[in-house]
């Protein structure tokens, strides 16, 4: 679905933000991009909808080179939620903001209304439908940005830092939404620093550092490799960090879920009890 072929991107200021990046993301995959501040995640995402075009190398979306497509053409396939939601808003009300791209895509008015209603409800923003997007709280703005993409439901959905500003319940819903979209066959790519969120979502993780991809694999492997993570300023999720402190006692350091960790510790303590009795 997405293919980066030896992509290098240099900002006009001379900063090389992507350095020979090659990667393929299949249709229906769920991917988390992680890496230190300035690693190149946002730059990567901006290449998906053609907002940025490679300085050298090629990006293919659905088999087509993004250099041959306009942002408008690409946006029929790829929807992007920006890191800074403010950058997405330009209309007087929340409702119009969501309806805009749907109308642009040529949906009939009743479909537009239905989709707007549904996505605002899902993101718990109905009560703000007539308000200016700029008068929302930080987390509400991010949810509006998510609602826009949700209503539009393109084949590829890229979300730059979707959990920012969300409380634990909103994150829970977001996680369910991402899983749901993925089940419907959507390709979902998120960029995030939220290791706890990634540990729960368990996607394919692509690790970036200084413009390069340094690792690519299952969340369970990547998130329990402390050394690898520290090379791009990421810490293990709290479960893995805690378990790795206890590795010398024979506990399993390679777990990222609470349930597994508890099971492992309880089994270990039982074992100890037995040896003591024996």
């Amino acid at each position, binding site marked *: 679905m997405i293919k980066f072929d030896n992509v290098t991107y240099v*900002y006009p*200021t001379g*900063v090389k933000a992507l350095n020979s990046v090659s990667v393929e993301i299949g249709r229906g995959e769920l991917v988390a991009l992680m*890496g*230190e*501040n*300035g*690693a190149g*995640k*946002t730059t990567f995402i901006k290449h998906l909808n053609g907002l940025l075009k490679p300085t050298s190398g090629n990006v293919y979306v659905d088999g087509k080179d993004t250099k041959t497509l306009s942002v408008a053409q690409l946006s029929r396939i790829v929807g992007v939620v920006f*890191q*800074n939601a*403010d950058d997405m808003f330009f209309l007087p009300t929340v409702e119009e903001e969501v309806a805009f791209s749907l109308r642009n895509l040529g949906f009939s008015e009743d479909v537009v209304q239905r989709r707007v209603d549904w996505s605002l409800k899902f993101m718990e923003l109905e009560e703000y439908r007539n308000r200016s997007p700029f*008068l*929302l*709280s*930080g*987390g*509400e703005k991010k*949810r509006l940005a998510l609602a826009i993409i949700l209503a539009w439901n393109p084949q590829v959905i890229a979300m*730059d*830092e979707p959990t*920012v*500003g*969300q*409380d*634990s*319940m*909103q*994150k829970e819903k977001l996680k369910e939404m991402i899983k749901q979209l993925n089940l419907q066959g959507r390709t979902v790519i998120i960029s995030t*620093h*939220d*290791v*706890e969120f990634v540990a729960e979502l368990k996607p394919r993780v692509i690790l970036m550092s200084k413009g390069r991809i340094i690792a690519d694999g299952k969340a369970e492997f990547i998130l329990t490799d402390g050394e690898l993570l*520290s090379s*791009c*300023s*990421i*810490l293990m*999720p*709290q*479960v893995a*960090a*805690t378990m790795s*402190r*206890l590795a010398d*006692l024979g506990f399993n350091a390679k777990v990222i879920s*609470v*349930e597994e*960790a*508890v099971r492992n*510790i*309880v089994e270990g*303590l*039982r074992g*100890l*009890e037995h040896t*003591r009795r024996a």
Partner: protein
Amino acid sequence: MEIVRVEGLTFTYSGFDTPAISDINLSIEEGEFVLLLGPSGCGKSTLCRCLNGLIPHFYAGKMEGRVLVAGMDVSKTPTYVLSQYVGMVFQNPENQLFSLTVENDVAFALENLGMPRDEIRRRVDFALKAVGIEDLRKRSPFELSGGQQQKVAIASILALMPKIMVFDEPTSSLDPVSAKSIIETIFKVKKELGTSVVVAEHRVELLADKVDRVIVMQKGRIVKDGRPREVFVSEEMIPYGVPVPKVVSMAKGVNRHFKVFNEIPLSSEEFEQGIRRFIHDKVR
């Protein structure tokens, strides 16, 4: 000594009927580290804006009650005076950046205070180093990544070292290593200089064992004000959107089978100690 006092504070943004925050009463001591929690839209940023005078000076609306900072009534004190006592990092830090270079942005407030050159240089160096962006000092703040911009905003406050530091979701865009080290720096500054710190955050894993006090808000009101262990351990706070640190869930899970933890841990370190102590006592 009390440094912040909020009495019967209610604020309604102009054009709206329902107040964003209602009847807030609060007293913060010098050197206290306060975590502000609550669901998205509950009023955390609004309360923060009241502490540094953005409300009522820059946001139109109806304000009742009063806010005293270092003895000054916020609504009667010009913001340039307040800014010497209260520094705030906005939730969306890029709205806070304006200079041509990172370095100038961090130095700006200090220059305004007429601080000597040497002192400014010393503080700017300290702050850039503390957030790990010395290599970006000559860059334009508008040509940085989201997390790098957040670091610039944090550095500006650290350089200023006001008596009260307010951070509105300071770690939201930071990579975990930066988030951890910046929280540790804030903690150190607070301890050494007796600075009061108010942090609004949703990511609590890194803060749970550092803060003195947790205030939980819901629909514009304070619904809980207590010690971190109280707030994070009691299940009654979960419906209020209070996140449970993973170690708390782990410890509770283990305790259902073996009574390992008398006191529920708030960090990996505390969890480790609990397990080791338990095994040690058992084996002997």
